[in-house]
């Protein structure tokens, strides 16, 4: 038998939309990214996930995160018009805009360009699959630690 490794290509052929996948990924970041302790607040404080613009996506995200927990904390979705409105959040997803550089803030955007342009994580759609593009230097600047497992899964870019 010549094929040592087999992996499934039918994974994304399921019923999940791109938005739903991205929402699920946003939830998963809570498990693979380490925030500075002071940014998280008390143990009852939820993870605040901000969606800049794209109110449709915010609806999908709210549905995905409803009732879920990571590391003992719940989630709250913050709908922001501009990136600045989301300064006090832990994760910011800005599909269209520039990356927001702030300590304790995980900046997530669309495309490789977003990560390369100073964002931490970019959602790159290839062959109808959503891939992660990671910028460890940006994470460092924001005081975040990306887990080794996360780095294994995503493609790493260096800031120009």
């Amino acid at each position: 038998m010549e094929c040592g490794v087999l992996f499934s290509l039918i994974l994304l052929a399921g019923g999940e939309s791109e938005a739903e996948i991205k929402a699920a990924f946003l939830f998963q970041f809570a498990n693979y990214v380490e925030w500075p302790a002071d940014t998280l607040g008390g143990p009852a404080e939820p993870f605040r996930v901000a969606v800049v613009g794209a109110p449709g996506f915010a609806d999908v995200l709210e549905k995905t995160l409803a009732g879920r927990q990571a590391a003992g904390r719940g989630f709250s979705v913050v709908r922001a018009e501009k990136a600045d409105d989301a300064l006090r959040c832990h994760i910011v997803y800005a599909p269209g805009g520039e990356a927001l550089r702030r300590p304790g803030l995980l900046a997530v955007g669309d495309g490789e360009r977003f990560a390369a342009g100073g964002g931490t994580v970019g959602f790159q759609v290839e062959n109808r699959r959503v891939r992660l593009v990671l910028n460890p230097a940006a994470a460092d600047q924001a005081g975040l630690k990306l887990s080794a497992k996360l780095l294994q899964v995503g493609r790493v870019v260096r800031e120009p």
Partner: protein
Amino acid sequence: MRDRSIRWQLKAILMAVSASALVAAMGAMVAYDVRDFRKEAAQRLDTLARMVGSQCTAALAFKDPKTGAEILRALENDPSVAEARVETKNGQLFAFYVRKGRDFESEVRLEVTAPVVEAGEHLGTISLKSELLELDALLRRDVTVAGIVLFFALFAAFLLSARLERVITGPVLHLADTVRAVSERGDYSIRARGASGNETGLLIDGFNAMLAQIQERDAALLRARDELELRVQERTVAIRESETRYRHLFESSPDAILIETEGVVSLANPAAASLFGAETPELLLGGALRARVPAERRDALGVRMLGEATFEDTWSRLDGGTVDVEVTVIHLPHRVAQVVIRDITRRKEAERIKNEFISTVSHELRTPLTSIRGSLGLLAAGKLGALPPAARPFVEIASNDCLRLVRLINDLLDIQKIEAGRMDFQMKTQDLVGLVNQAVEANRSYGRQFGVRFVVREVPPTALVRGDGDRLIQVLSNLLSNAAKFSPRGEAVDVSVDHEDGRYLVSVRDRGPGIPAEFRDRIFQKFAQADSSDTRQKGGTGLGLNICKAILEKHEGSISFEAAPGGGTLFRFSLPELAEQPALSSV
């Protein structure tokens, strides 16, 4: 050649027991080993699954199967894992790993499944499969070790069993050898050795005891056989002697002896040959004796009856002559008869001469006696002048003795006639009562001589018989005179006539001394006298009763006597009653 089967059987049993115990122990050991190995392998595989699973969390979380597959590729370092499989929590296949060169023919022996969890988040499951190839190696190793152990253990058992079985089979084989020796040589003096107190010892003791018994019986049997042989020899000699003795008796017997079997002469002695005028006894064999016997005698020879018969006869000889014989036929069982024939020709001749002599003498005596009697009668009657008183008793004595002499001669003549068959009987109807009275009257004077009375008692009115009156009176007179002679003086002689079963019985009873026992058997024979001296005193010929018997037999009558109750003798004769009642004829 000794049959060692019991030795090998025992050895085989010992080996089999050892082998089965060892195999059981080894089997248990291997099974335990395998179970241990499986348990350990399962734990190890479970740990490995959880470890690999934890590395797959990110790949699952971010739906990156390629990375998942790369993580699974790390399993290449563990050749015990045949397949790995990661599924999402929805059960969809996420990543898959198959060991290079995996042989799908070999059976999957172990499969573990573990959840893939990251920070409490259930992401999917991972399962690992293993063929436990090491198990085969382990089994091979265990079996090899067990085989080697078994081999050495059995070898040791074999060496040990050789010593052990000798304890058991030694005595048994010795016993078997003894049995063989005894049965081959027939020597019962051999004994088996050894008595260890166990069952084998018991067997040996029992066998020895049995041998001792057999030996004893053998000896007894031999003794008995020798004794028997000796006895048979003695018997044979005795039988031969006895046979010779009897043969000599048979051969030298003066009487002819013939044995008839089924009516045919089967044996004859030399005397028989000379009797019949044959040259050898063999000439008489095969013939029937009956042919020589007159028809009226054949019943006596007839083989159909058992018993003995004797008769006299005149038989013809082979040379045509005749011979007077006395024949005794003894009938034996199985239609065999012994015939003894005595030649009585000379005896017959002697009798004839004697009879003729008596007859002549009697006749010659009678004539002078008649004249003497007549003369004496005249003298006694005084016809020749009165006799002097002194002569009277002498004349009376002479007269009585003359009468006695006449009677004696008459008796002799009667006997002569009877034997010659020349006595004539005038058979007529007679009244026995009348005859009795006549006889009593006729003998009254004779009775007076002895001082005896005759008393007639219990007489029926008439008793008709057929017979010769004179001869019957002769019989009665004889009985009366006998009774008178033997009665004491002054006694009575009783006479009675009875009727019984169609016969008339006449009884004469005296009160004499009775008849001596030794005389009773021959009282009716000729010249029979109880005591010569005594009889001579009484006077008598000894012929009277013989004549009575002969006369009565001619009348189909019989005579007997018995001791009378109260002393004396009772003579009784019987005559058949006359059936019809014809007119009474005078005597």
